[in-house]
């Protein structure tokens, strides 16, 4: 490979001389740079005031999009959230609204 790409993200139709040997990807977790937020039709909206910080929303998210820092829920990663609503249902305290995207 003669060229270095950001985060090992080889663009589509990269010349064969420059792509990675054997299709190996050497930056682990670089899917982080792929945004799946635009898959969303519905959007969970976190209501801070109703949140009891039970964190039950954290493990149920298929897209690792519940942001927890220092054992506290701090927000939603909308870059990756696909709007499945699992967190909304998992919350025992009604701390999420689930609204159509764009509203």
């Amino acid at each position: 490979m003669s060229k270095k790409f950001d985060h090992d993200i080889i663009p589509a139709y990269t010349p064969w001389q420059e792509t990675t040997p054997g299709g190996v990807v050497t930056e682990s977790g670089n899917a982080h740079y792929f945004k799946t937020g635009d898959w969303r039709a519905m959007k969970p909206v976190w209501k801070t005031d109703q949140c009891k910080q039970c964190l039950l929303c954290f493990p149920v998210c298929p897209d690792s999009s519940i942001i927890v820092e220092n054992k506290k829920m701090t927000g939603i990663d909308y870059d990756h959230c696909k709007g499945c609503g699992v967190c909304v249902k998992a919350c025992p305290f009604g701390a999420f609204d689930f609204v159509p995207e764009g509203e």
Partner: protein
Amino acid sequence: MAIREKLSGNEAVAVAMRQINPDVVAAFPITPSTEVPQYFSAFVANGQVDTEFVPVESEHSAMSACIGAGTAGARTMTATSANGLALMWEMLYIAASCKMPMVLSVVNRALSGPINIHNDHSDSMGARDSGWIQLYGENNQEAYDNCIMAVKIGEHADVQLPVMNCYDGFITSHAVENIELIEDDKVKAFVGTYQANNFLLNSDEQIAVGPLAITTHYFEHKRQQAESMRNAKAVILDVAKEFEAMTGRSYGLFESYKMEDAERAIIVIGSTAGTSKFVVDALRAKGEKVGLIKLRVFRPFPAEELAEALANVKAVAVLDKCDGFNAKGAPLFTETLSALYLADAKPLTVNYVYGLGGRDVRTDNIEQVYADLAEIVAAGKVDGPYRYLGVVEA
């Protein structure tokens, strides 16, 4: 000082593997390759190697485990034959696409059905387009030498491909013959230590191997893989030179035997080359200008070199120990024809499918081919280029 020994082909390959001391060997028994993992597992049991031996439950898993081990960063080897190679088929392509060096000793055996344990080349010839380098040996010495060189060829930075070390089942694998072994330390120095560029167990850099690559990437990956195969030719020759410096034994892409002024030639692969050399000597003693080309490297195919070697020959017989079932000639024949078509000189060319399922190839069979070639030269044309040698006709 080389070690003078007498070993069967399988023993010789197992000894080479002991000297190479790979990290992982994963294998499943199938006649006639079974002895290779058998001998090798004894080396493991007796602490003569550091290898982790994985006695898998199928050849598919053997190749899968080898891929897992190889991508993890291990120097990896295995052996199989016939249906075992067929069961590996899917994984052969994947190993090559991962650009993963590994050595697979293919002890050539007829592919079922009907089931037959004896030698022909239908197993490895079927896998010819799987992206593996293919070396073929004539006898135990070559099986041993090729096994050692294969490590270095596959691991070369310009190649990074898996290599098949093919030799004839029973004829080579089970016959005990004289052999010159290389001292352990010399083999060790020759193959060196394997250091993969990217590997799963590299704690400094986690990697991912074996992606889904859709239309935007797949083609480029295959093109890159094809380039590695192209690069392999020069590397095979370089490794052979280095090997010759160590052992005095010379290897090329093929061996030309008494070809300097030959008017009639046979191209053949494997143990039959030995029997054919005997016939060439006998015919030469009678003043006949006959020669022989023994192909060692089938992948990459040495097209230009072969065409050049045949440039001054009037007629050539291509002997295939497998049928291509394309109704128009077997693999070595069609590839040789392609090579000649793009060259200036075009000798009269005829195909013989021979020796299927272990049908013994006798000196008089080979004499017959040279006699047929004489007729072809006299006639100036080939009638019926797709022939069989040694099959019983009504």
